């Protein structure tokens, strides 16, 4: 299925948000996530099933004013 990750289309087997993060190389990194504009806490990533067309946002700490 196809999902959007940070605005880019990604082809994935499907499964959970945690599996996607692992597949994309985010394991152990300090990140936060949202799916379809809703925050998904780290504790819910293992159970959050992704669906075709989902929009996933993955963010990390950055400079800010």
């Amino acid at each position, binding site marked *: 299925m196809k999902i959007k990750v940070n*605005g880019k289309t990604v082809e994935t087997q499907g499964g959970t948000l945690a599996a996607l993060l692992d597949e994309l190389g985010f394991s152990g990194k300090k*990140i*936060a996530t*949202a799916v379809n504009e809703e*925050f998904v806490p780290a504790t819910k990533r293992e159970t959050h099933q992704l669906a075709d067309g989902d929009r996933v946002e993955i*963010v*990390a*700490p950055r400079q800010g*004013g």
Partner: protein
Amino acid sequence: MPVFYGTEIASRMMLGTAQYPSPAILANAFRRSGAGVATVSVRREAGGERAGQDFWALIKQLKVAVLPNTAGCHSVREAVTTAHMARELFDTPWIKLEVIGHTDSLQPDPFGLVEAARILCEDGFQVFPYCTEDLILCERLLNAGCKVLMPWGAPIGTGLGLNNIYGLRSLRANYPDVPLVIDAGLGLPSQAAQAMEMGFDAVLLNTAVAKAGDPVVMAEAFARAVEAGAMARKADPMEPRDMAAPSTPILGKPLL
């Protein structure tokens, strides 16, 4: 020293972390200024990227309180989701809430700001709203649960200083017990000193330091100005008057 949601900060200067020429200069600017709070943001990161992780390692070394922002958010939903991501990422209930209403001036959207503030305060966030000096807006933000207000001096990144002295003075007078931080628009240390002389609790700046020719020296210049202004406020300045009053005694002046 200012107390934000029960946490006392050792400095009246709060500093942003964006736009510095290098990470080393950023770190030195913090050290030289003694700033007690660093603002940060959340942004997209790719799987193989290290930027966010490296930045976080740098910020942790500074040993300052971290205030994440919702910069660039134009809607309530965007700001609320960003705040949730920031709370988890930085492990803090503090959030500098920005809901921008106007692209050119980056003026806050007062209606969206109050709505987002209410949602976040009810959810346990400790909200630092980036607002204007409008008294009614500030009252609504306090009613929504905010215990700190951060009125702008001037639009973000302009360096114009305190644009509405009357409005800011009124705000200070109306809310003598609410911590008030001048956030945005400062360009010179003298403007920061002025804010302190007017009784504001702290200033938050970024561009004025980061975009100076020598950010580290400018950071210290701001720190000294903030300290001088705060000392002057405490020392109870004289009242200005229209007519001259000689400072040298008239008595004993020789008749020549």
